[in-house]
């Protein structure tokens, strides 16, 4: 029951992009084509799960034990940056084909608010490590859903005659407004 509630919250009612407005940069930058949007979504979900696992564990068993919670921000970003770097190296070695499709998105992910966002959200939203990892996976799913839907709309938007000042970012943001309204209905 708790898992279902977490799922609905992370994917719909508290969707990272559309409701909490976290991780907007890739949402605007990598949503021009469905293929690259899906690639970004998968890469972000993957890193989110790993980041949830490591940051929650380190926070629980190192920072809280040593009573140095004020180091959270620095430690989390350090963990995330090293995680992404290691993932890049492992993928390059183990699966060059996967690296070819996801590799370009990985460096961007370090500075993606959504990853540090899930690490921070896990501090208050969940009660144990298992739920933290699940929350990461669900939030990644919500991210992928939003960016995938957006890329579908944007492929159509390219063929539409948009007033000149609205070309590019503005029309994308206004589209996002309607998507956010649709997601807001779940709340």
């Amino acid at each position, binding site marked *: 029951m708790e898992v279902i509630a977490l799922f609905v919250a992370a994917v719909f009612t508290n969707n990272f992009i559309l409701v909490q407005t976290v991780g907007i940069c890739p949402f605007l930058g990598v949503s021009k084509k469905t293929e690259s949007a899906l690639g970004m979504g998968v890469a972000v979900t993957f890193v989110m799960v790993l980041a949830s696992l490591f940051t929650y564990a380190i926070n629980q068993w190192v920072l809280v034990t040593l009573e140095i919670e004020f180091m959270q921000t*620095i430690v*989390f970003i350090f963990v995330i940056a090293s995680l992404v770097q290691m993932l890049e190296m492992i993928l390059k070695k183990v699966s060059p084909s996967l690296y070819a499709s996801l590799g370009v998105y990985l460096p961007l992910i370090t500075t993606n608010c959504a990853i540090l966002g899930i690490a921070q959200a896990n501090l208050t939203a969940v009660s144990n490590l298992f739920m933290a990892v699940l929350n990461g996976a669900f939030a990644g799913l919500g991210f992928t859903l939003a960016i995938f839907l957006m890329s579908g709309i944007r492929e159509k938007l390219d063929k539409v005659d948009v007033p000149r000042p609205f070309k590019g970012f503005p029309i994308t943001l206004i589209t996002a407004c309607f998507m956010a309204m649709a997601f807001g209905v779940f709340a």
Partner: protein
Amino acid sequence: MKVKDIALDGVVRQNPVFKLVLGTCPALAVSTSLANAIGMGAAVIFVLMCSNILISLLRNVIPSKVRIPAFIMIIATFVTVVILVFEKFLPDLYDSLGMFLPLIVVNCLILARAEAFASVNKVGAAALDGLFMGIGFTLALSVMAFIRELLGTGCLFGVQLWDFSIGIFASSAGGFLVYGLLIAAFVAGSNAVSKKQKQKQAAAEKAAKLQVAQAVAASEAEVK
């Protein structure tokens, strides 16, 4: 580089939110009220100035291969300072900014200025760039917050002005809408300005040509 150029670039010509479209997450999330927007702006100005100064000082020391992690660690340190200060002295603001205070670490604006400006410029210029980019960010956030707070809740700075309110502006959908419309207005405005400048230039060139022609005609008449 002149101070005036840096100031104009930071606040208007290269406005981080409307022109460069950087730092979009806090711009959308924190612009629900003016107090939040200004608090966030102050935090970003502080972090941006400090990180720009330190990175500019260390620009010849940091090896270029590890510069991004080094920049992020420097930024994270100053963000931690901000978090601790806010938690102690501004607890209300600390609660309402919530997760977006630590998220300043991954605000693309700060990393972008470190990479594009501070790592290739002298300390003084880098400090000024940080200050004015931060002011540009704060102004943009305040404009968005003004519209959203006024229309979304009928308040300004939390003071009730009237009972009329349109709920959508207080939600994230309203944030996307206001942001999109403001970027479009900014683009239209800057297009109009550059068009006017071009017209002025063209007119000036025409006048200069006319003068030359008149001078030539006058000298020809004299010869005759």
